[in-house]
């Protein structure tokens, strides 16, 4: 308003300012170092949370007990534990203690702003076979998603690449740290494979409207053939990796053999094709999940289903091949028009009944990972017991990710990823009161609390005639 009365010189200055401002805005998006949030990595110490209700998850609920946190670990749990001298006491009266939640299917840190800011997206590499791409090398420790997520009680996430058929390697990180190394729990946590499936392309629509959809539709039988070809290519890639590994080992022992030129893609695959490390296969439909199970059995590898809309239907094959499921579809609409309205809410309960090992995940890029507890809560409304719902976002994902001995429950010796709340962890009305990651007591601040604080008392200076 005031600018109107200012002279031309000032206008040029304003133009310059706006240019600088735009550049600044672009920079702040691309660089995405939420300056205000750096170095909010909390403080270490010895802490004793007393008189609290303890949801150990691995065992029974302790109605009135103490948890001692020391040197980044849980040092004591129980009703009558002795508190070390010098420990900082936190009165937990009326509060509940839970293990930090784990979301085993996100892209957190790889994607800041979904649309209109490509510079912030690092989820999908070019090409279809990218085994050597590593999420840990692209996760942004200073993304604003970190604080926003952890203040809701989620302390660790699996962050994964998404593109092509072999997307790359996922990482398991704690949501705290100034460097990727400080965040990493398992820097390389598994390989992501988008298992080839039958798609008929298109994505357009039959009639009406006016906007054309994507590519051309192909015949079903053609689509089956294409899927089979892709699976064959995948098998070939895996066998190449097996052979590559043998050749490299052979040459290491006997230098008279021909040297093997380094192939980063094959090298990255070696531990997976040997069944030493786990492969996450994205698959949704029963037939695709069964195809994964067959593939896992045939190739003698370790597999996990990521997605798993219809996994409960494939229980026999999944159990036979020891394949757990990371389920990402609480916030999805039923697939077919005539599917029951609650088919995807009920899926976790059905997996549980069928004896499938599973975890619930948001499957989100990052911003909505904080809804993990409520997603588990909804599963709790549709047939899953509250205890199982809680396990599906704490101990089960830890076990599925192979870190069940390190995290996921309140047990002595485990990493002190601990959340203290004023109510049920899975209820959206509940507030997190204290938050620890690796025993560090963290401030409950985020980009959102900071903006809130800046504007909550704002008064208007507007005068309207």
């Amino acid at each position, binding site marked *: 308003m005031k600018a109107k009365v200012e002279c031309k010189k000032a206008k040029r200055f304003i133009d310059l300012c706006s240019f600088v401002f735009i550049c600044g805005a672009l920079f702040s998006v691309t660089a995405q170092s939420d300056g205000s949030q750096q170095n909010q990595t909390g403080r270490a110490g010895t802490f004793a949370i007393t008189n609290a209700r303890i949801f150990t998850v691995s065992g029974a609920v302790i109605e009135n007990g103490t948890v001692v946190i020391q040197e980044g670990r849980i040092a004591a749990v129980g009703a009558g534990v002795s508190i070390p001298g010098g420990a900082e006491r936190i009165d937990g009266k009326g509060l509940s203690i839970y293990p930090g939640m784990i979301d085993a299917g996100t892209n957190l840190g790889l994607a800041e702003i979904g649309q209109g800011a490509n510079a912030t997206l690092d989820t999908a590499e070019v090409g279809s076979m990218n085994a050597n791409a590593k999420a840990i090398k692209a996760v942004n420790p200073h993304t604003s998603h970190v604080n926003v997520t952890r203040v809701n009680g989620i302390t660790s996430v699996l962050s994964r690449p998404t593109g092509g058929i072999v997307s790359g390697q996922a990482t398991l990180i704690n949501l705290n740290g100034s460097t990727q190394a400080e965040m990493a729990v398992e820097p390389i946590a598994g390989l992501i494979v988008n298992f080839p499936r039958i798609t008929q392309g298109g994505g357009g629509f039959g009639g009406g409207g006016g906007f054309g959809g994507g590519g051309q539709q192909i015949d079903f039988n053609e689509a089956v053939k294409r899927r089979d070809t892709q699976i064959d290519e995948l098998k070939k890639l895996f066998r190449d990796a097996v052979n590559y590994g043998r050749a490299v080992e052979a040459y290491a022992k006997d230098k008279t053999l021909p040297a093997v030129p380094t192939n980063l893609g094959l090298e990255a695959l070696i531990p997976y094709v040997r069944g030493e490390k786990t492969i996450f296969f994205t698959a949704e439909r029963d037939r695709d999940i069964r195809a994964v199970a067959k593939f896992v059995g045939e190739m003698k590898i370790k597999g996990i289903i990521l997605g798993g809309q219809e996994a409960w239907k494939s229980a026999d094959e999944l159990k036979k091949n020891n394949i757990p499921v990371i389920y990402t579809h609480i916030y999805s609409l039923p*697939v077919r*028009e005539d599917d029951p309205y609650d088919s995807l809410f009920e899926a976790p309960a059905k997996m549980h009944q069928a004896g499938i090992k599973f975890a619930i995940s948001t499957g989100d890029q990052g911003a909505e990972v904080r809804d993990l507890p409520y997603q588990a809560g909804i599963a709790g409304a549709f047939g899953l017991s509250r205890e199982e719902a809680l396990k599906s976002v704490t101990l089960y994902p830890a076990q599925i990710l192979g870190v069940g001995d390190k995290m996921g429950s309140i047990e002595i010796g485990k990493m002190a990823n601990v959340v203290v709340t004023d109510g049920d962890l*899975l209820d959206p009305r509940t507030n997190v009161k204290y938050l620890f990651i690796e025993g560090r007591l963290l401030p409950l601040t985020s980009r959102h609390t900071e903006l809130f604080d800046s504007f909550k008392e704002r008064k208007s200076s507007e005068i309207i005639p």
Partner: protein
Amino acid sequence: MNMKRVIQYLTMAGLVFAGSLFAFAQKGGDVLIKGATVMTAARGTLENADVLVTNGKIAKVGKGISAPAGVRVIDAAGKYVSPGIIDAHSHSMLDAINEGSIAVSSMTNVGDVLDPRDITIYRALAGGVTTALLLHGSANPIGGQSTTVKFKWGHTVEEFPVAGAPPGIKFALGENVKRSNFTPQPGQTPRYPRTRMGTMEVIRDAFLRARDYKRSWDDFKARKTNVPPRRDLELEPLVEILEGKRLVHAHGYRSDEHYNLLLLADEFGFRIATLQHALEAYKIAPEIAKRGTGASIFADSWSYKLEAYDSIPYNGYILWKNGVVVSINSDSDERMRRLNLDAAKMQKYGGVPEEEALKMITLNPAKQLGIDKRTGSIEQGKDGDLVVWSGHPFSPYSRVEITMIEGDVYFDSAKDVTMRAELAKEREALEKLEMNRAPAAGGTPPRLPSERRSADRDEADRGNNR
């Protein structure tokens, strides 16, 4: 197709239709809900209370009400009753969403493209939603006309629009309007506007034209001129806005552009009914409150696009504290099913009191849509739009058991379960038909029915339709 097949097909189609009518649209309009915790969204929460609905209207709310002869009694001991949820931003039922080819598409009306068989209606009912504002997309500074419907699943399309609801129209600002995320195809001229400057000029120009158009009609009616002006379907709805007869629902994210729209409305002497999304509204809460404009927001979505980066979940609290009428919307067929949990988040973020949070998905959207005289709260004389919940509607462990509109049950979770066996049988019978032969047996598979509409949406609506 031979005659036999045609008959088979028609028979099956007839069964499907009759089945859906029979199962869901239980006519009656009289019901007594007994012994529930009744959250009125207007006059507090009543423990162990009854709600009597007769002829579709709430006749009585209180304790110890006995059922008139022949009225169905629902025993709701230990359960909760809330008003039907109202979603003030939805694209459910729409066979087309954006007329994106022109910057001012005010002549279009989404009411012309309603699909009463859209399965998302039933899924919304299963989440306790009874009423929705169906909006045009956000591709234009001035978009198409909107319509307010009740989800009367199983009825004909004429029965969906809420009688007496004021007409509305969609406006939009920002990224979608200036088509910032879409590159024109080679040979295609980019559509004006391409900046936020142009957006404001498009709107100002349209209202100047509307003002002139109105004057030409006023002059004609006052017999100052002899020839009636040519009707202008683009400007007629804008004249209705100037006359205060049509509600403006303005999509936008950044506070500066929403504020500019408020100033423009001041200039032309009308009120903006709601700012839609308004994820930065907390930055200009006093200015919004002063004008009596409502805000229809997401509970906590953010970061999905650049202009949503300053969105905070405390938005609702700050607006409420400033006296703005706040509603929480879904803008998504998926999210619509869990607006109860979105309302619950308002208690967490800032501390909106329980009843005020409930109002944000019931009475407040009713106010914003101008239908609060008839729905939005549990009060005598209002429509019997009610939801019976297994537990507190803000608990994630609760589920909807019954959803009714004007006393008729449109969703019943127990009935839904018994329906499944019938549906499975029907599906089996349909799949056996030669025309539906499996692809492996040489048949052409049908497209996924659920694909049909989601792909129909314009680019501006992709990515969760925001």
